């Protein structure tokens, strides 16, 4: 056990700290929920790329900083931005999922065209995977694309498409090989949301906002070269990056920041003249969550250390999405309980706290427990891949094992 990063890294940490101290006034103030970054946000993102504080290892020719991969430096950057409470680089679906996919499997032309503006926040993407009939069982998807005169012609419907309303582009799974087996008939297409024949209908969610949409395709023509990977390989293209999304959903720094906000809330809020943190039942729950957040933090350090050594993440990694999303939800749940009756205030009501964000988080984090592979799908994965327990009998496949879907 040696938790020091070494002098070279501590120098680097100082650099990051100095950068943050000098530039923090330029950081966007309300980076929160907006799908499309503000002008301020785009400028901030560009500044971060220029200094290598985001898109760090992405080659320069594609608009990144072009540094050698160095897990510890990336970690230090994340730590210092989180500690300072300053937004780090953008983390949207384009950057977290599409960019790694293109880097791994895209053509040179695709990389040059799309990665730079995506990183810069100029091009916003949405993820067109789920359909009304295909969620956890994603590979059963039916949206079709037939080839006609040099184009794919896409017909069908996607659902739960986050940020489709704001997005410029979509990366989309469609069935191109109607007669191939379930997992072999899918292709991964990328196309503009302005293409004729696309209709986006916002779906209002339990939060009262429309965080996602229904997306309809009627004879949407997509040139055949706007495919990533080969025809029929879309399932594997998509799976190459599902791990990135799960990583994005289990960030220990984010948990720690939520916990700090909760502690602050419980110290500031008063009930009957006493601080909420002085109420034993609530305080007990707070410390229990603090212990769990600590456990996830050190679990994250262990994963990081395995990564540096080139060892597989193993069980420590498999459990992150399930545990971290649940924990985030529980932190918000306690905040609401700490607020008591005030906990129900929403939509800008008088007496509302933190712009209703505890309730919004509480609800949205339930969405995150469901999205990105539901808790139950995570448990299937943990038991099958982590504990080697038998797979579910499959009624949808002729015979033999197959990858488990769910995203």
């Amino acid at each position, binding site marked *: 056990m040696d938790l020091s990063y070494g002098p070279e890294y501590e120098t680097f940490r100082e650099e990051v700290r100095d950068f943050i101290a000098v530039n923090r006034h330029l950081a966007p103030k309300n980076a929160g929920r907006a799908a499309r970054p503000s002008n301020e946000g785009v400028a901030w993102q560009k500044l971060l790329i220029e200094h290598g504080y985001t898109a760090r290892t992405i080659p320069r020719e594609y608009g990144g900083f072009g540094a050698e991969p160095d897990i510890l430096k990336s970690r230090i950057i994340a730590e210092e931005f989180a500690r300072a409470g300053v937004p780090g680089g953008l983390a949207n679906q384009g950057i977290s999922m599409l960019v790694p996919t293109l880097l791994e499997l895209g053509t040179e032309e695709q990389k040059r065209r799309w990665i730079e503006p995506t990183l810069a926040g100029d091009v916003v993407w949405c993820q067109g995977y789920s359909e009304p009939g295909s969620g956890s069982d994603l590979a059963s998807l039916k949206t079709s694309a037939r080839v006609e005169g040099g184009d794919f012609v896409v017909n069908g419907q996607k659902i739960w498409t986050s940020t489709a309303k704001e997005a410029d582009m979509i990366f989309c799974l469609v069935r191109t090989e109607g007669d191939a087996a379930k997992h072999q008939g899918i292709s991964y297409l990328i196309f503009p949301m302005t293409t004729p024949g696309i209709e986006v209908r916002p779906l209002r969610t339990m939060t009262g906002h429309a965080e996602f949409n229904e997306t309809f395709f009627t004879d949407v023509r997509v040139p055949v070269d706007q495919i990533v990977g080969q025809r029929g390989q879309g399932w594997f293209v998509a799976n190459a990056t599902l791990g990135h999304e799960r990583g994005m959903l289990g960030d220990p720094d984010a948990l720690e920041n939520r916990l700090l906000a909760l502690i602050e809330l419980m110290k500031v809020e008063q009930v009957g003249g006493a601080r909420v943190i002085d109420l034993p039942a609530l305080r007990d729950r707070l410390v229990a969550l603090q212990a769990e957040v600590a456990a996830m933090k050190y679990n994250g350090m262990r994963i990081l250390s395995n990564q540096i050594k080139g060892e597989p993440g193993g069980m420590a990694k498999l*459990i992150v999405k399930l545990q971290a999303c649940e924990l985030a939800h529980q932190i918000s749940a306690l905040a609401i309980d700490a607020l008591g009756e005030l906990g129900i205030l929403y939509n800008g009501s008088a007496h509302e706290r933190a712009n209703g964000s505890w309730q919004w988080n509480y609800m949205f984090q339930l969405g995150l427990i469901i999205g990105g592979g539901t808790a139950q799908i995570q448990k299937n994965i943990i038991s099958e891949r982590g504990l080697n327990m038998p797979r579910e009998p499959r009624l949808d496949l002729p015979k033999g094992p197959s990858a488990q879907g769910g995203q």
Partner: protein
Amino acid sequence: MDFGLSQEQQMLAESVTRLLRELSPLDHVRQVAEAGSAVSAQSQAALAELGLPGLVVPEAHGGLGMGLLDATVVATALGEAVAPVPFAARNVMAPLALIAAGSEAQQAQWLPRIAAGEVRFGVGVNEQVSRRDGSGVRCTGGALTGTALFVLDCEEADHFMIADEAGRLHIVSAQADGLELIALKTIDATRSVGELRLASTPAEALADDGGAAARRLIAAGRILLAADSLGAADAMIAQAVAYAGQREQFGRVIGSFQAVKHMCAEMAAKNEPCRSLVWYAAHAFDAVPAEAELVACHAKSHTGEVGRFVARTATEVHGGMGFTDLLGLHYWFKRIGFDRQVLGGPETVREEAAILQGWTARGV
């Protein structure tokens, strides 16, 4: 940067595990327990060969000079095997007390004998955590009077390290006047705890003890109990998964039923972060003193909660068989139960964690 066990630590864990697999299979554990003892002579002797009694004793005093993380690794292996061997109090807490608060002369007098296995300590600090049933020990004129409950590793102890009501530590000989030891019967047949009654019993105070050493001992004890619970939970999960892979109902192995798989996945998902937490707590104990007590609280309370969940869930996976004495799963269930309650159950420990952070009126 390296978060994890060194090769030496992994080897230490493996040698303890291998040795216990050979010398202390469940049948042996059961035999020892049914004979009314919590000490397996053969396991204890073999572990002594590995140097366990002197594990944390400095090399200058004849020990191995290892840290709490090394001890934690051993504790996990012992818990995994439900080994009836005194360890946490006798081999770690007692020497740590001397290291923290003994004078040079006391260290020179006691540490080499501890390392050599010539003296065997039991440790009584529970009154510093929770005082019950009128317990408590007063010190007057170099003699102790009162009752210490839940004295750890008391079987075969020839000396005791006892905290008085001010939190100062004292060494008492088991032969001393006015001392009576009453063995307490607990659910866990693999560990011994006792009630020590003292009536003007002569005692030797640790010379440099300002009262802080007991806090440190308790933190070490909590981390070791957490580590033990972690190991026992590992073993229960492994047994549940193995059983589910072999027991058939409705024409298929029960491990192919999702309800059973999800029980196992939940156990693993809750237990795995405990490993990282326990390792960090042990590391902090030696290397990050400012955090040590707080993380020890977190490790203790959190493994206590997770341990309870694993213990009941793994038992359920075994159906009626899990409930029997025959299968012996209950040895792990009870070991986890012991680890949870001793040196403070989760609520008690969380309250201490709150006080440490100045979060309660009492703590301010």
